[in-house]
């Protein structure tokens, strides 16, 4: 049996703990407040305001004029919306799987590279430091149908490369090819995930006679499936918002009059409507359509992930 003083002590402890927790919460919010304020002012408010603007005719300089759902109706009859959306979906469908597979393959190789891993990690990441505008210019140089490096290399094998930058059928494949320049970030994340796979699992599989391929397929990939899922979602969103490289190569100042339809990504069309034609209301509606598409695709990916993604922490 507890003494009276002991009872008093135990009754006081939760109160003290509660006070301490409240203090911690206040401190946490204090430290978070710069981000919270920034998020509210620079993200949530513009996003909410763009929803209102999507219902208006607005040219930046004059007051928004409420037009209801006209902008959304206009999208249905605008052939460039379907063209741009089609281009973007094509790019996303092909570039994301290629990106994930290539980054994973290189990370698996790097994981076995031993001492040289540091050098290759740096080498693979370096292109990520290149500004996207420079990548756009490089697209034109490397993929030039006449004298580009890619076609020169293909020529060594007797293959006559296509006009990547001018043939509408090859513009998107060319951009997908160039997107592989920036695999570095995904490689580093995959590498970190692979390094976190418990060694004892591989050791056990080895003792059971599993070869390298089986260990990769049955142990490493399931163990890093959460990372694969994360990178798939992040890269899908990024692919849907592709802009700079294609804009620089085909719609920028050096190509002010030559805009190849095949490179008209959704982000580029949105930008043109907003800042070339000053149809900011219509551009806001376009932005919301993109949001809905990205959200739907993300939801589908999340739904599918339940069947394929393994979370160690979720196991009993």
């Amino acid at each position, binding site marked *: 049996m507890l003494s009276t003083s002991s009872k008093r002590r135990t009754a006081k402890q939760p109160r003290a703990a509660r006070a301490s927790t409240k203090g911690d919460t206040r401190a946490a919010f204090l430290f978070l407040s710069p981000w919270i304020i920034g998020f509210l002012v620079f993200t949530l408010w513009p*996003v909410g305001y763009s929803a209102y603007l999507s219902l208006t005719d607005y040219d930046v300089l004059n007051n928004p004029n409420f037009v209801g759902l006209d902008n959304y109706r206009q999208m249905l009859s605008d052939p460039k919306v379907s063209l741009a959306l089609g281009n973007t979906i094509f790019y996303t469908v092909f570039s994301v799987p290629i990106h994930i597979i290539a980054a994973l393959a290189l990370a698996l190789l790097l994981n076995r590279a031993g001492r040289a891993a540091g050098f290759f990690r740096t080498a693979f990441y370096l292109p990520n430091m290149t500004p996207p505008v420079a990548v756009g210019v490089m697209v034109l140089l490397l993929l030039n149908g006449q004298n580009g490096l890619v076609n020169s290399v293909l020529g060594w094998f007797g293959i006559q490369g296509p006009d990547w930058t001018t043939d509408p059928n090859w513009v998107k494949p060319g951009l997908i090819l160039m997107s592989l320049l920036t695999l570095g970030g995904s490689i580093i994340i995959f590498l970190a995930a692979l390094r976190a796979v418990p060694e004892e699992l591989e050791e056990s599989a080895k003792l059971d006679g599993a070869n390298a391929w089986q260990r990769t397929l049955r142990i490493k990939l399931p163990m890093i499936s959460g990372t694969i899922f994360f990178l798939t979602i992040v890269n899908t*969103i990024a692919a849907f*918002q592709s802009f700079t490289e294609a804009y620089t190569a085909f719609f920028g100042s050096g190509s002010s*009059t030559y805009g190849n339809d095949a490179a008209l990504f959704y982000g580029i069309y949105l930008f043109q409507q907003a800042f070339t034609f000053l149809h900011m209301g219509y551009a*806001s509606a376009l*932005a919301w359509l993109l949001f809905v598409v990205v959200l739907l695709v993300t939801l589908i990916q999340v739904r599918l992930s339940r069947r394929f993604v393994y979370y160690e922490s979720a196991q009993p």
Partner: protein
Amino acid sequence: MSAKAARTALLSVLSVAALALSGCATGQANHQTTSSSFDSSAQLKGKLTVMGFGTGDEVATTRFDNAKAALSGVQVNLLKGSLDIQQFLSSVASGQSPDIIYGDRGQIDSFAARGAVIPLDDCISGEKIDTSSFRKTALDQVSLNGHVYGIPEFNQVEITMANPVLLKQAGLDMADIDGSSWDKITAASQSLSKTKDGKLAVIGYDSKLPDFFPLWVKANGGSLISDDGKKATLDSPEVVQALTFAAAIYQKQGGFGAVKAFRDSADFFGKGNQFASNTLGAMAMEQWYVNILNDVSPKADVDFTTFKDRQGAPLSFSSGSAWAIPKGSPNPGAACRFAKSMTSTDSWMKAAAARVQAREKDGKPFTGLFTGNQMADQKIKDQFVKADPATNWGRAIEASYTANESSFAYPANPAGAEFKTAWQDAVNHVINGQDQPASALAKAQQVAQKALDAGWAQLNGAG
């Protein structure tokens, strides 16, 4: 955190991020009006912020210094670099307009239609700017609904440039590629064009599509738009015929894709340019390229003549820059005097003298200055230009001055950017093999007319 909670959190973060990235930020319009008076005798003071101009050479520096001297009581602040439309419009919308902007004349009409720049009628009368000295084509490009919105500065025109050695090898001369006979150009492009190992090695004739499409249309007696800027005429027979011809030039050389890829691979501004490397037969090009060629490859095989219409008359498409005063300009009086000084005959003469001196120092010829001020152009030509028609550079100068006197321009309209995009899309579809000229231009006509109608309705509705 459970897997479900983790997924929910991740989804929430991603959704917000996606929305944030795809959202459009906006600013609030500033409806401040300018009530300042413009007086040529007033002593001006305060600050003047100039946006979109750069002092990269002696012509710019001399005039800029001259303008600063004319505004002795004003502190002039130059935001160097070409005009960033996004930055400019944001600054106007947020009530932080620069005092004056320097931009492409083709942009001024769109700015004017939306009220981003103010009419300069009071500025012109108050500062006693002599608009009769300005080139009419240049002034028309910055005039909308009877008001002038810009003070023209440089003027750009096109001339024909060709490689005489390649011409001679093919049994041709300059008259075969000057534009007066389209049949001769077609024949010349085929005889000058060469391939090596299945790849294009020499471009016979580059019709410079889509950029120079308006020039081909005018050469064929057509126009992209009516004289009042209200009716698109993209589907007219002259326009369709011009596109059919200019696009076919590429088809006979392996297609536009091959020609553009080859063109893009050239060292356009360097010693290995298309003329120095003997990889281009002929093309029409803006006259400023003469200076580039003279600088980087003075001994290259290149000759010059005017571009001609199908009747054999010299022809060029006028484009260039202008000064405009934004809505909400804090110091419009100083801005107006600055524009006046930068474009005055006296200022251009000082700039020309500085250029002559610089060229003489480098042992290079002075190829003239081409401005929106025709009085200045004439004085500069009379006083400084020494064109020897026996030399290729002398012929370049003569051709440029003739082109300058034979230029045309399309009228300003409130849907300038959309109108231009409509015809450019049509041209791009044809040269990329995605559509036929008549069909592409018919579609462009619909888009262009819709944009014009909306633009004029908005402009007239706004009064």
